[in-house]
Protein backbone atom coordinates (compact mmCIF):
# COMPACT_ATOMS: atom_id res chain seq x y z
CA UNK A 1 0.00 0.00 0.00
CA UNK A 2 1.42 3.42 -0.94
CA UNK A 3 2.79 5.65 1.80
CA UNK A 4 1.45 8.96 0.43
CA UNK A 5 -1.33 10.91 2.16
CA UNK A 6 -4.73 9.46 1.31
CA UNK A 7 -7.02 11.79 -0.63
CA UNK A 8 -9.97 10.85 1.50
CA UNK A 9 -9.94 8.77 4.63
CA UNK A 10 -12.23 7.59 7.39
CA UNK A 11 -10.12 7.24 10.53
CA UNK A 12 -11.46 5.08 13.34
CA UNK A 13 -15.01 6.07 12.50
CA UNK A 14 -18.04 5.01 14.51
CA UNK A 15 -21.64 5.76 13.58
CA UNK A 16 -24.65 5.16 15.79
CA UNK A 17 -28.12 6.17 14.63
CA UNK A 18 -30.41 7.27 17.40
CA UNK A 19 -34.06 6.69 16.57
CA UNK A 20 -35.45 7.89 19.85
CA UNK A 21 -35.91 4.63 21.67
CA UNK A 22 -33.27 2.56 19.89
CA UNK A 23 -29.67 2.99 18.91
CA UNK A 24 -28.57 1.33 15.70
CA UNK A 25 -24.87 0.57 15.94
CA UNK A 26 -24.20 0.80 12.23
CA UNK A 27 -20.43 1.24 12.23
CA UNK A 28 -17.75 0.53 14.82
CA UNK A 29 -14.19 1.90 14.69
CA UNK A 30 -13.68 1.58 10.98
CA UNK A 31 -10.72 2.92 9.07
CA UNK A 32 -10.62 3.21 5.29
CA UNK A 33 -8.18 5.21 3.16
CA UNK A 34 -8.55 6.12 -0.50
CA UNK A 35 -5.49 6.98 -2.61
CA UNK A 36 -5.07 8.86 -5.85
CA UNK A 37 -5.32 6.61 -8.88
CA UNK A 38 -6.38 3.56 -6.87
CA UNK A 39 -9.65 1.70 -6.66
CA UNK A 40 -10.71 0.27 -3.34
CA UNK A 41 -13.66 -2.10 -3.17
CA UNK A 42 -15.83 -2.35 -0.09
CA UNK A 43 -17.62 -5.69 0.06
CA UNK A 44 -20.35 -6.86 2.40
CA UNK A 45 -23.97 -7.86 2.74
CA UNK A 46 -26.79 -5.43 3.34
CA UNK A 47 -26.53 -4.16 6.90
CA UNK A 48 -22.77 -4.53 6.90
CA UNK A 49 -22.34 -0.76 7.11
CA UNK A 50 -20.78 -0.28 3.69
CA UNK A 51 -23.32 2.26 2.52
CA UNK A 52 -23.19 4.04 5.88
CA UNK A 53 -19.43 4.33 5.51
CA UNK A 54 -19.79 5.78 1.99
CA UNK A 55 -22.34 8.28 3.22
CA UNK A 56 -20.08 9.31 6.08
CA UNK A 57 -17.27 9.78 3.59
CA UNK A 58 -19.66 11.91 1.52
CA UNK A 59 -20.64 13.86 4.66
CA UNK A 60 -24.36 13.07 4.36
CA UNK A 61 -24.37 12.87 8.11
CA UNK A 62 -21.81 13.45 10.85
CA UNK A 63 -19.68 10.74 12.47
CA UNK A 64 -20.44 9.67 16.03
CA UNK A 65 -16.73 9.42 16.74
CA UNK A 66 -13.54 9.35 14.70
CA UNK A 67 -12.85 11.68 11.79
CA UNK A 68 -13.15 12.05 8.05
CA UNK A 69 -10.01 13.54 6.51
CA UNK A 70 -9.63 15.15 3.11
CA UNK A 71 -5.92 15.28 2.13
CA UNK A 72 -5.04 14.91 5.77
CA UNK A 73 -7.28 17.75 6.96
CA UNK A 74 -10.19 16.91 9.21
CA UNK A 75 -13.47 17.71 7.45
CA UNK A 76 -15.88 19.63 9.65
CA UNK A 77 -19.01 19.44 7.52
CA UNK A 78 -20.29 19.33 4.00
CA UNK A 79 -19.65 22.47 2.01
CA UNK A 80 -19.17 23.41 -1.60
CA UNK A 81 -15.40 23.02 -1.49
CA UNK A 82 -15.75 19.53 -0.07
CA UNK A 83 -18.20 18.51 -2.79
CA UNK A 84 -15.82 20.01 -5.32
CA UNK A 85 -13.49 17.18 -4.36
CA UNK A 86 -15.78 14.34 -3.35
CA UNK A 87 -18.75 13.03 -5.33
CA UNK A 88 -20.97 10.02 -4.87
CA UNK A 89 -22.68 7.96 -7.55
CA UNK A 90 -25.92 6.38 -6.33
CA UNK A 91 -27.11 2.84 -6.76
CA UNK A 92 -30.33 3.54 -8.59
CA UNK A 93 -29.94 5.64 -11.73
CA UNK A 94 -33.73 5.82 -12.06
CA UNK A 95 -33.87 7.70 -8.77
CA UNK A 96 -30.73 9.78 -8.99
CA UNK A 97 -31.83 11.82 -11.99
CA UNK A 98 -34.72 14.26 -11.91
CA UNK A 99 -37.23 12.72 -14.30
CA UNK A 100 -38.45 16.13 -15.46
CA UNK A 101 -35.05 17.55 -16.38
CA UNK A 102 -32.99 16.90 -19.47
CA UNK A 103 -29.60 15.27 -19.37
CA UNK A 104 -27.83 18.56 -20.00
CA UNK A 105 -29.51 20.24 -17.02
CA UNK A 106 -27.69 17.92 -14.61
CA UNK A 107 -24.28 18.42 -16.12
CA UNK A 108 -24.68 22.10 -16.81
CA UNK A 109 -25.75 22.95 -13.25
CA UNK A 110 -22.77 21.08 -11.85
CA UNK A 111 -20.38 22.93 -14.15
CA UNK A 112 -21.94 26.31 -13.44
CA UNK A 113 -22.08 25.90 -9.68
CA UNK A 114 -18.40 25.10 -9.56
CA UNK A 115 -17.36 27.99 -11.76
CA UNK A 116 -16.47 26.01 -14.86
CA UNK A 117 -17.45 26.94 -18.39
CA UNK A 118 -20.97 25.62 -18.87
CA UNK A 119 -21.54 26.05 -22.58
CA UNK A 120 -22.73 23.31 -24.91
CA UNK A 121 -19.20 22.33 -25.82
CA UNK A 122 -18.26 21.70 -22.19
CA UNK A 123 -21.45 19.71 -21.58
CA UNK A 124 -20.93 17.63 -24.70
CA UNK A 125 -17.31 16.98 -23.83
CA UNK A 126 -18.33 15.50 -20.50
CA UNK A 127 -21.03 13.35 -22.04
CA UNK A 128 -18.55 12.10 -24.61
CA UNK A 129 -16.15 11.26 -21.80
CA UNK A 130 -18.68 8.80 -20.37
CA UNK A 131 -19.34 7.34 -23.83
CA UNK A 132 -22.68 9.02 -24.39
CA UNK A 133 -22.25 9.76 -28.07
CA UNK A 134 -23.48 11.52 -30.10
CA UNK A 135 -23.34 13.83 -27.12
CA UNK A 136 -25.48 16.58 -28.66
CA UNK A 137 -28.37 14.10 -29.03
CA UNK A 138 -28.07 12.70 -25.53
CA UNK A 139 -27.85 16.17 -24.00
CA UNK A 140 -31.42 16.91 -25.03
CA UNK A 141 -32.95 13.65 -23.84
CA UNK A 142 -35.07 13.11 -20.76
CA UNK A 143 -34.14 10.32 -18.36
CA UNK A 144 -37.05 8.09 -19.40
CA UNK A 145 -35.65 8.01 -22.93
CA UNK A 146 -32.45 6.39 -21.68
CA UNK A 147 -31.57 2.87 -20.60
CA UNK A 148 -30.35 2.18 -17.09
CA UNK A 149 -26.73 2.08 -18.18
CA UNK A 150 -27.04 5.36 -20.02
CA UNK A 151 -28.64 7.01 -17.00
CA UNK A 152 -25.84 5.81 -14.78
CA UNK A 153 -23.39 7.38 -17.23
CA UNK A 154 -25.25 10.68 -16.95
CA UNK A 155 -24.99 10.45 -13.18
CA UNK A 156 -21.27 9.80 -13.50
CA UNK A 157 -20.88 12.73 -15.92
CA UNK A 158 -22.68 14.98 -13.43
CA UNK A 159 -20.30 13.88 -10.69
CA UNK A 160 -17.28 14.42 -12.95
CA UNK A 161 -18.47 17.91 -13.89
CA UNK A 162 -17.32 19.33 -10.57
CA UNK A 163 -13.85 17.84 -11.33
CA UNK A 164 -13.62 15.83 -8.15
CA UNK A 165 -10.60 13.91 -6.96
CA UNK A 166 -12.63 11.20 -5.23
CA UNK A 167 -15.55 9.25 -6.63
CA UNK A 168 -17.59 7.06 -4.31
CA UNK A 169 -19.69 4.48 -6.11
CA UNK A 170 -22.50 3.04 -3.98
CA UNK A 171 -23.32 -0.23 -5.77
CA UNK A 172 -23.26 1.66 -9.06
CA UNK A 173 -24.01 -1.39 -11.22
CA UNK A 174 -26.30 -3.53 -9.11
CA UNK A 175 -29.47 -2.08 -10.63
CA UNK A 176 -28.24 -2.38 -14.20
CA UNK A 177 -28.77 -5.16 -16.67
CA UNK A 178 -26.10 -7.81 -16.47
CA UNK A 179 -24.92 -7.26 -20.03
CA UNK A 180 -24.04 -3.58 -19.51
CA UNK A 181 -22.53 -3.78 -16.03
CA UNK A 182 -19.05 -4.41 -17.34
CA UNK A 183 -19.32 -1.37 -19.59
CA UNK A 184 -19.83 0.85 -16.58
CA UNK A 185 -17.06 -0.88 -14.63
CA UNK A 186 -14.71 -0.42 -17.58
CA UNK A 187 -15.67 3.26 -17.69
CA UNK A 188 -14.82 3.66 -14.00
CA UNK A 189 -11.47 1.93 -14.58
CA UNK A 190 -10.72 4.28 -17.46
CA UNK A 191 -11.61 7.37 -15.40
CA UNK A 192 -9.21 6.21 -12.74
CA UNK A 193 -6.47 5.96 -15.38
CA UNK A 194 -7.24 9.20 -17.18
CA UNK A 195 -8.26 11.47 -14.33
CA UNK A 196 -6.22 9.94 -11.56
CA UNK A 197 -9.36 9.64 -9.44
CA UNK A 198 -9.41 7.91 -6.12
CA UNK A 199 -12.30 5.49 -6.35
CA UNK A 200 -14.36 3.63 -3.81
CA UNK A 201 -16.40 0.80 -5.28
CA UNK A 202 -19.08 -0.53 -2.95
CA UNK A 203 -20.60 -3.85 -3.90
CA UNK A 204 -22.05 -7.09 -2.63
CA UNK A 205 -20.62 -8.88 -5.66
CA UNK A 206 -17.14 -9.96 -4.73
CA UNK A 207 -16.33 -11.13 -8.26
CA UNK A 208 -16.89 -7.67 -9.69
CA UNK A 209 -14.83 -6.21 -6.83
CA UNK A 210 -11.97 -8.41 -7.88
CA UNK A 211 -12.44 -7.44 -11.55
CA UNK A 212 -12.27 -3.71 -10.94
CA UNK A 213 -10.28 -2.92 -7.85
CA UNK A 214 -6.74 -2.86 -6.52
CA UNK A 215 -7.72 -3.45 -2.92
CA UNK A 216 -10.68 -5.16 -1.30
CA UNK A 217 -12.10 -4.43 2.14
CA UNK A 218 -14.63 -6.77 3.72
CA UNK A 219 -17.19 -5.58 6.26
CA UNK A 220 -19.54 -7.51 8.47
CA UNK A 221 -22.25 -6.04 10.69
CA UNK A 222 -20.53 -2.70 11.05
CA UNK A 223 -17.03 -4.05 11.59
CA UNK A 224 -14.16 -4.11 9.12
CA UNK A 225 -12.88 -7.70 9.18
CA UNK A 226 -10.39 -8.03 6.36
CA UNK A 227 -8.55 -6.00 3.75
CA UNK A 228 -5.67 -6.09 1.33
CA UNK A 229 -4.67 -6.46 -2.30
CA UNK A 230 -7.59 -7.88 -4.29
CA UNK A 231 -5.92 -11.09 -5.38
CA UNK A 232 -4.71 -12.06 -1.94
CA UNK A 233 -8.14 -11.46 -0.39
CA UNK A 234 -9.83 -13.56 -3.09
CA UNK A 235 -7.31 -16.37 -3.38
CA UNK A 236 -6.30 -16.60 0.29
CA UNK A 237 -9.10 -15.26 2.43
CA UNK A 238 -8.02 -14.98 6.06
CA UNK A 239 -11.30 -14.26 7.81
CA UNK A 240 -13.98 -16.97 8.02
CA UNK A 241 -16.58 -14.46 6.87
CA UNK A 242 -14.65 -13.65 3.71
CA UNK A 243 -14.47 -17.34 3.05
CA UNK A 244 -18.21 -17.71 3.55
CA UNK A 245 -18.82 -14.84 1.17
CA UNK A 246 -16.58 -16.41 -1.47
CA UNK A 247 -18.11 -19.85 -1.04
CA UNK A 248 -21.60 -18.40 -1.34
CA UNK A 249 -20.94 -16.45 -4.51
CA UNK A 250 -22.05 -18.16 -7.70
CA UNK A 251 -19.09 -19.55 -9.58
CA UNK A 252 -19.81 -21.57 -12.70
CA UNK A 253 -16.21 -22.74 -12.78
CA UNK A 254 -16.73 -24.54 -9.49
CA UNK A 255 -19.69 -26.43 -10.83
CA UNK A 256 -19.23 -30.14 -10.58
CA UNK A 257 -22.80 -30.53 -11.65
CA UNK A 258 -25.13 -29.00 -9.10
CA UNK A 259 -23.04 -29.99 -6.10
CA UNK A 260 -22.09 -26.44 -5.24
CA UNK A 261 -25.34 -25.71 -3.47
CA UNK A 262 -25.87 -28.99 -1.72
CA UNK A 263 -24.22 -28.08 1.58
CA UNK A 264 -27.26 -27.08 3.62
CA UNK A 265 -25.40 -25.97 6.70
CA UNK A 266 -27.66 -23.58 8.57
CA UNK A 267 -25.59 -20.51 8.06
CA UNK A 268 -27.83 -18.09 9.92
CA UNK A 269 -28.30 -14.43 9.22
CA UNK A 270 -26.46 -11.23 10.08
CA UNK A 271 -27.29 -9.92 13.57
CA UNK A 272 -29.50 -7.01 14.51
CA UNK A 273 -27.48 -3.83 14.82
CA UNK A 274 -29.67 -2.60 17.64
CA UNK A 275 -28.42 -5.35 19.89
CA UNK A 276 -25.32 -6.77 18.19
CA UNK A 277 -23.32 -9.67 19.69
CA UNK A 278 -20.33 -8.58 21.74
CA UNK A 279 -16.76 -9.17 20.59
CA UNK A 280 -16.48 -10.20 16.98
CA UNK A 281 -19.99 -9.79 15.62
CA UNK A 282 -19.51 -12.79 13.36
CA UNK A 283 -18.96 -15.23 16.21
CA UNK A 284 -22.54 -16.61 16.37
CA UNK A 285 -22.21 -17.82 12.78
CA UNK A 286 -18.52 -18.69 12.82
CA UNK A 287 -17.66 -22.41 12.84
CA UNK A 288 -14.29 -21.62 14.44
CA UNK A 289 -15.54 -19.32 17.16
CA UNK A 290 -13.67 -19.48 20.48
CA UNK A 291 -14.45 -18.03 23.90
CA UNK A 292 -12.27 -15.03 23.13
CA UNK A 293 -14.33 -14.17 20.06
CA UNK A 294 -17.42 -13.72 22.22
CA UNK A 295 -15.89 -11.12 24.48
CA UNK A 296 -13.53 -8.88 22.60
CA UNK A 297 -12.99 -7.69 19.05
CA UNK A 298 -9.64 -9.01 17.79
CA UNK A 299 -6.75 -6.69 16.93
CA UNK A 300 -5.42 -6.45 13.41
CA UNK A 301 -3.01 -9.11 12.16
CA UNK A 302 -0.91 -8.14 9.13
CA UNK A 303 0.48 -10.54 6.55
CA UNK A 304 3.44 -10.48 4.26
CA UNK A 305 1.33 -10.14 1.10
CA UNK A 306 0.03 -6.78 2.34
CA UNK A 307 -3.32 -8.06 3.56
CA UNK A 308 -4.63 -7.98 7.13
CA UNK A 309 -7.52 -9.28 9.15
CA UNK A 310 -9.17 -8.81 12.53
CA UNK A 311 -9.62 -12.37 13.65
CA UNK A 312 -8.52 -14.29 16.73
CA UNK A 313 -7.68 -17.30 14.54
CA UNK A 314 -4.72 -15.36 13.23
CA UNK A 315 -3.71 -13.98 16.57
CA UNK A 316 -2.59 -17.10 18.41
CA UNK A 317 0.59 -15.71 19.88
Amino acid at each position, binding site marked *: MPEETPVLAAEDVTKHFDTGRQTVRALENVTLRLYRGRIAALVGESGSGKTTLARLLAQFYPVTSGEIRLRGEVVSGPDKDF*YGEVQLV*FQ*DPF*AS*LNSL*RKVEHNVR*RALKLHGHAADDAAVHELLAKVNLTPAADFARKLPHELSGGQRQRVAIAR*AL*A*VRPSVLLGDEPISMLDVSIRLDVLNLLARLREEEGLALLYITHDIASARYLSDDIYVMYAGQMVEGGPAESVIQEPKHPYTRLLLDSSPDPERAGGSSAFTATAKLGEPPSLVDPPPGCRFHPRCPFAKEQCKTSFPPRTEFADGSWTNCWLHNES
Partner: protein
Amino acid sequence: MKVRIGIGIIVFFSVIAIIGPWLNDLMGIGPWKIDYDAIAEPPGAGHLLGTTSQGTDVLAQMIAGTRNSMVVGSVAGVIGVILSVVVGVTAGFFGGKVDAVLSFVTNMFLVLPVLPLTLIVAGYVQDTGPITIALIIGLFGWAAGARTLRAQTLSLRGRDFVMAMRMIGESKPRMIFVEVLPHLAGWISAMFLHLVLAAILAEAGLAFLGVSSADTISWGTVIDQARQVALLNGMWWWFVPPGLCIALLGTATGLVNFGIDEVMNPRLRTADIKAMRKALA
Protein backbone atom coordinates in the same frame (compact mmCIF):
# COMPACT_ATOMS: atom_id res chain seq x y z
CA MET B 1 -62.57 12.21 -23.15
CA LYS B 2 -63.76 12.57 -19.55
CA VAL B 3 -61.12 15.21 -19.00
CA ARG B 4 -62.19 17.11 -22.11
CA ILE B 5 -65.82 17.22 -21.00
CA GLY B 6 -64.68 18.43 -17.58
CA ILE B 7 -62.48 21.16 -19.00
CA GLY B 8 -65.26 22.16 -21.37
CA ILE B 9 -67.71 22.69 -18.51
CA ILE B 10 -65.18 24.62 -16.46
CA VAL B 11 -64.35 26.87 -19.42
CA PHE B 12 -68.07 27.40 -20.07
CA PHE B 13 -68.73 28.63 -16.53
CA SER B 14 -65.57 30.74 -16.52
CA VAL B 15 -66.66 32.48 -19.71
CA ILE B 16 -70.14 33.08 -18.27
CA ALA B 17 -68.53 34.49 -15.14
CA ILE B 18 -66.50 36.93 -17.20
CA ILE B 19 -69.05 38.06 -19.76
CA GLY B 20 -72.12 37.62 -17.53
CA PRO B 21 -73.22 41.27 -17.23
CA TRP B 22 -72.87 41.88 -20.98
CA LEU B 23 -74.69 38.68 -21.70
CA ASN B 24 -77.58 39.79 -19.52
CA ASP B 25 -77.65 43.21 -21.21
CA LEU B 26 -77.54 41.51 -24.58
CA MET B 27 -80.56 39.42 -23.75
CA GLY B 28 -82.27 42.39 -22.20
CA ILE B 29 -82.60 40.79 -18.80
CA GLY B 30 -81.11 41.67 -15.44
CA PRO B 31 -80.94 40.01 -12.05
CA TRP B 32 -82.74 42.85 -10.29
CA LYS B 33 -85.08 43.80 -13.10
CA ILE B 34 -88.66 43.12 -12.08
CA ASP B 35 -91.21 42.06 -14.64
CA TYR B 36 -94.56 42.81 -13.01
CA ASP B 37 -96.37 41.01 -15.78
CA ALA B 38 -94.60 37.78 -15.08
CA ILE B 39 -94.47 36.97 -11.41
CA ALA B 40 -93.67 33.40 -10.45
CA GLU B 41 -93.97 32.33 -14.06
CA PRO B 42 -92.71 28.90 -15.16
CA PRO B 43 -90.08 28.69 -17.93
CA GLY B 44 -91.35 29.96 -21.24
CA ALA B 45 -90.53 32.13 -24.23
CA GLY B 46 -90.41 35.40 -22.28
CA HIS B 47 -88.26 34.10 -19.48
CA LEU B 48 -86.29 31.04 -20.49
CA LEU B 49 -85.93 29.74 -16.94
CA GLY B 50 -89.03 31.43 -15.59
CA THR B 51 -89.25 34.11 -12.93
CA THR B 52 -89.11 34.35 -9.17
CA SER B 53 -91.93 35.29 -6.85
CA GLN B 54 -90.78 38.90 -7.18
CA GLY B 55 -90.81 38.75 -10.94
CA THR B 56 -87.05 38.72 -11.50
CA ASP B 57 -85.61 36.52 -14.21
CA VAL B 58 -84.10 33.27 -12.95
CA LEU B 59 -81.72 32.96 -15.90
CA ALA B 60 -80.42 36.47 -15.30
CA GLN B 61 -79.89 35.65 -11.63
CA MET B 62 -78.07 32.47 -12.53
CA ILE B 63 -75.78 34.31 -14.93
CA ALA B 64 -75.06 37.02 -12.39
CA GLY B 65 -74.60 34.42 -9.65
CA THR B 66 -72.06 32.51 -11.71
CA ARG B 67 -69.58 35.34 -11.38
CA ASN B 68 -69.77 35.57 -7.61
CA SER B 69 -69.70 31.83 -7.09
CA MET B 70 -66.72 31.47 -9.41
CA VAL B 71 -64.95 34.38 -7.71
CA VAL B 72 -65.48 32.81 -4.29
CA GLY B 73 -64.28 29.48 -5.65
CA SER B 74 -61.17 30.72 -7.37
CA VAL B 75 -60.12 33.21 -4.69
CA ALA B 76 -60.52 30.59 -1.98
CA GLY B 77 -58.76 28.07 -4.24
CA VAL B 78 -55.79 30.36 -4.79
CA ILE B 79 -55.47 31.22 -1.11
CA GLY B 80 -55.85 27.60 -0.08
CA VAL B 81 -53.29 26.40 -2.60
CA ILE B 82 -50.77 29.05 -1.61
CA LEU B 83 -51.17 28.18 2.06
CA SER B 84 -50.97 24.46 1.48
CA VAL B 85 -47.91 24.78 -0.73
CA VAL B 86 -46.14 27.06 1.71
CA VAL B 87 -46.97 24.97 4.75
CA GLY B 88 -46.75 21.52 3.14
CA VAL B 89 -43.61 22.00 1.10
CA THR B 90 -41.81 23.85 3.89
CA ALA B 91 -42.65 21.15 6.41
CA GLY B 92 -41.70 18.35 4.02
CA PHE B 93 -38.51 19.92 2.74
CA PHE B 94 -36.98 21.24 5.93
CA GLY B 95 -38.20 18.55 8.29
CA GLY B 96 -37.16 18.53 11.94
CA LYS B 97 -38.76 20.99 14.31
CA VAL B 98 -40.23 23.11 11.52
CA ASP B 99 -42.02 20.01 10.30
CA ALA B 100 -43.18 19.04 13.77
CA VAL B 101 -44.81 22.42 14.35
CA LEU B 102 -46.33 22.77 10.89
CA SER B 103 -47.61 19.20 10.87
CA PHE B 104 -49.28 19.73 14.19
CA VAL B 105 -51.04 22.83 12.95
CA THR B 106 -52.01 21.05 9.73
CA ASN B 107 -53.42 18.05 11.53
CA MET B 108 -55.35 20.33 13.79
CA PHE B 109 -56.99 22.20 10.96
CA LEU B 110 -57.65 18.87 9.32
CA VAL B 111 -59.84 17.60 12.12
CA LEU B 112 -61.57 20.86 12.94
CA PRO B 113 -64.93 20.86 11.12
CA VAL B 114 -64.69 23.63 8.57
CA LEU B 115 -68.32 24.66 8.26
CA PRO B 116 -68.98 25.57 11.92
CA LEU B 117 -65.58 27.22 12.15
CA THR B 118 -66.20 29.29 9.03
CA LEU B 119 -69.61 30.13 10.33
CA ILE B 120 -68.33 31.43 13.65
CA VAL B 121 -65.82 33.70 11.98
CA ALA B 122 -68.27 34.83 9.31
CA GLY B 123 -70.79 35.48 12.02
CA TYR B 124 -68.52 37.93 13.77
CA VAL B 125 -67.13 39.60 10.67
CA GLN B 126 -69.43 42.43 9.73
CA ASP B 127 -68.85 42.35 6.00
CA THR B 128 -70.04 39.13 4.39
CA GLY B 129 -69.34 39.90 0.73
CA PRO B 130 -68.02 37.21 -1.59
CA ILE B 131 -64.35 38.11 -1.18
CA THR B 132 -64.52 37.98 2.61
CA ILE B 133 -66.30 34.65 2.46
CA ALA B 134 -63.67 33.38 0.02
CA LEU B 135 -60.87 34.54 2.33
CA ILE B 136 -62.35 32.75 5.30
CA ILE B 137 -62.97 29.54 3.36
CA GLY B 138 -59.46 29.60 1.89
CA LEU B 139 -57.98 30.26 5.30
CA PHE B 140 -59.62 27.16 6.78
CA GLY B 141 -59.53 24.80 3.83
CA TRP B 142 -55.84 24.28 3.13
CA ALA B 143 -55.03 21.52 5.60
CA ALA B 144 -55.82 18.44 3.53
CA GLY B 145 -53.73 19.78 0.67
CA ALA B 146 -50.85 20.69 2.94
CA ARG B 147 -50.84 17.19 4.35
CA THR B 148 -50.62 15.60 0.92
CA LEU B 149 -47.93 18.01 -0.23
CA ARG B 150 -45.91 17.45 2.91
CA ALA B 151 -45.93 13.70 2.36
CA GLN B 152 -45.01 14.10 -1.30
CA THR B 153 -42.25 16.60 -0.58
CA LEU B 154 -40.88 14.38 2.15
CA SER B 155 -40.63 11.49 -0.27
CA LEU B 156 -39.10 13.70 -2.96
CA ARG B 157 -36.57 15.15 -0.56
CA GLY B 158 -35.37 11.68 0.29
CA ARG B 159 -34.90 10.75 -3.36
CA ASP B 160 -31.41 10.33 -4.62
CA PHE B 161 -31.69 13.04 -7.25
CA VAL B 162 -32.24 15.69 -4.60
CA MET B 163 -29.20 14.40 -2.69
CA ALA B 164 -27.23 14.39 -5.90
CA MET B 165 -28.14 17.98 -6.71
CA ARG B 166 -27.25 18.98 -3.18
CA MET B 167 -23.87 17.35 -3.68
CA ILE B 168 -23.10 19.47 -6.71
CA GLY B 169 -23.89 22.50 -4.57
CA GLU B 170 -27.40 23.46 -5.68
CA SER B 171 -28.98 26.16 -3.49
CA LYS B 172 -32.05 25.46 -1.40
CA PRO B 173 -34.41 27.84 -3.20
CA ARG B 174 -33.46 26.39 -6.59
CA MET B 175 -33.77 22.92 -5.15
CA ILE B 176 -37.33 23.64 -4.05
CA PHE B 177 -38.47 25.55 -7.10
CA VAL B 178 -36.58 23.82 -9.89
CA GLU B 179 -36.15 20.26 -8.66
CA VAL B 180 -39.03 19.58 -6.27
CA LEU B 181 -42.05 21.79 -7.06
CA PRO B 182 -42.46 20.73 -10.70
CA HIS B 183 -43.04 17.17 -9.51
CA LEU B 184 -45.95 18.41 -7.43
CA ALA B 185 -47.73 20.17 -10.29
CA GLY B 186 -50.29 17.39 -10.67
CA TRP B 187 -51.11 17.33 -6.98
CA ILE B 188 -51.34 21.10 -6.80
CA SER B 189 -53.73 21.39 -9.71
CA ALA B 190 -55.92 18.59 -8.39
CA MET B 191 -55.93 20.33 -5.05
CA PHE B 192 -56.86 23.66 -6.57
CA LEU B 193 -59.88 22.18 -8.36
CA HIS B 194 -60.90 20.41 -5.20
CA LEU B 195 -60.70 23.64 -3.21
CA VAL B 196 -62.66 25.58 -5.80
CA LEU B 197 -65.51 23.13 -5.53
CA ALA B 198 -65.32 22.96 -1.75
CA ALA B 199 -65.42 26.75 -1.56
CA ILE B 200 -68.42 27.03 -3.87
CA LEU B 201 -70.22 24.42 -1.80
CA ALA B 202 -69.24 26.14 1.43
CA GLU B 203 -70.36 29.52 0.14
CA ALA B 204 -73.69 28.04 -0.85
CA GLY B 205 -73.96 26.45 2.59
CA LEU B 206 -73.24 29.77 4.29
CA ALA B 207 -75.71 31.59 2.09
CA PHE B 208 -78.21 28.91 2.93
CA LEU B 209 -77.68 29.69 6.59
CA GLY B 210 -78.21 33.33 5.86
CA VAL B 211 -74.57 34.36 5.99
CA SER B 212 -74.26 36.41 2.82
CA SER B 213 -74.51 39.99 1.83
CA ALA B 214 -77.88 41.26 0.67
CA ASP B 215 -76.64 42.97 -2.46
CA THR B 216 -74.77 40.10 -4.05
CA ILE B 217 -76.17 37.21 -5.98
CA SER B 218 -74.53 33.83 -6.04
CA TRP B 219 -75.78 30.34 -6.73
CA GLY B 220 -76.06 29.90 -2.99
CA THR B 221 -78.17 33.00 -2.38
CA VAL B 222 -80.55 31.95 -5.15
CA ILE B 223 -81.11 28.61 -3.47
CA ASP B 224 -81.53 30.35 -0.12
CA GLN B 225 -84.21 32.72 -1.41
CA ALA B 226 -85.93 29.99 -3.37
CA ARG B 227 -86.12 27.76 -0.34
CA GLN B 228 -88.17 30.25 1.60
CA VAL B 229 -90.83 30.74 -1.07
CA ALA B 230 -90.43 28.47 -4.04
CA LEU B 231 -90.73 25.13 -2.37
CA LEU B 232 -94.19 25.54 -0.96
CA ASN B 233 -95.45 27.07 -4.19
CA GLY B 234 -94.01 24.32 -6.34
CA MET B 235 -91.68 26.70 -8.22
CA TRP B 236 -89.11 24.02 -9.06
CA TRP B 237 -87.59 26.16 -11.83
CA TRP B 238 -86.32 28.52 -9.20
CA PHE B 239 -84.37 26.20 -6.92
CA VAL B 240 -83.33 23.49 -9.38
CA PRO B 241 -80.94 25.51 -11.67
CA PRO B 242 -78.52 26.85 -9.02
CA GLY B 243 -77.97 23.43 -7.46
CA LEU B 244 -77.60 21.91 -10.88
CA CYS B 245 -74.95 24.48 -11.79
CA ILE B 246 -72.97 23.66 -8.64
CA ALA B 247 -73.31 19.95 -9.34
CA LEU B 248 -72.24 20.39 -12.97
CA LEU B 249 -69.18 22.41 -12.08
CA GLY B 250 -68.36 19.94 -9.33
CA THR B 251 -68.71 17.00 -11.68
CA ALA B 252 -66.42 18.78 -14.12
CA THR B 253 -63.70 19.23 -11.52
CA GLY B 254 -64.17 15.59 -10.56
CA LEU B 255 -63.73 14.50 -14.17
CA VAL B 256 -60.56 16.55 -14.58
CA ASN B 257 -59.24 15.10 -11.33
CA PHE B 258 -59.89 11.62 -12.71
CA GLY B 259 -57.50 12.48 -15.52
CA ILE B 260 -54.90 13.94 -13.17
CA ASP B 261 -55.12 10.84 -10.96
CA GLU B 262 -54.53 8.61 -13.94
CA VAL B 263 -51.43 10.55 -14.91
CA MET B 264 -50.05 10.40 -11.38
CA ASN B 265 -51.03 6.78 -10.72
CA PRO B 266 -50.86 4.83 -13.99
CA ARG B 267 -52.57 1.87 -12.36
CA LEU B 268 -55.81 3.82 -12.44
CA ARG B 269 -55.83 4.02 -16.23
CA THR B 270 -58.80 2.00 -17.33
CA ALA B 271 -58.52 2.74 -21.05
CA ASP B 272 -55.86 0.05 -21.54
CA ILE B 273 -57.84 -2.59 -19.69
CA LYS B 274 -60.88 -1.80 -21.77
CA ALA B 275 -58.82 -2.05 -24.93
CA MET B 276 -57.56 -5.44 -23.80
CA ARG B 277 -61.01 -6.81 -23.05
CA LYS B 278 -62.17 -5.63 -26.44
CA ALA B 279 -59.21 -7.21 -28.22
CA LEU B 280 -59.70 -10.55 -26.48
CA ALA B 281 -63.47 -10.64 -26.87
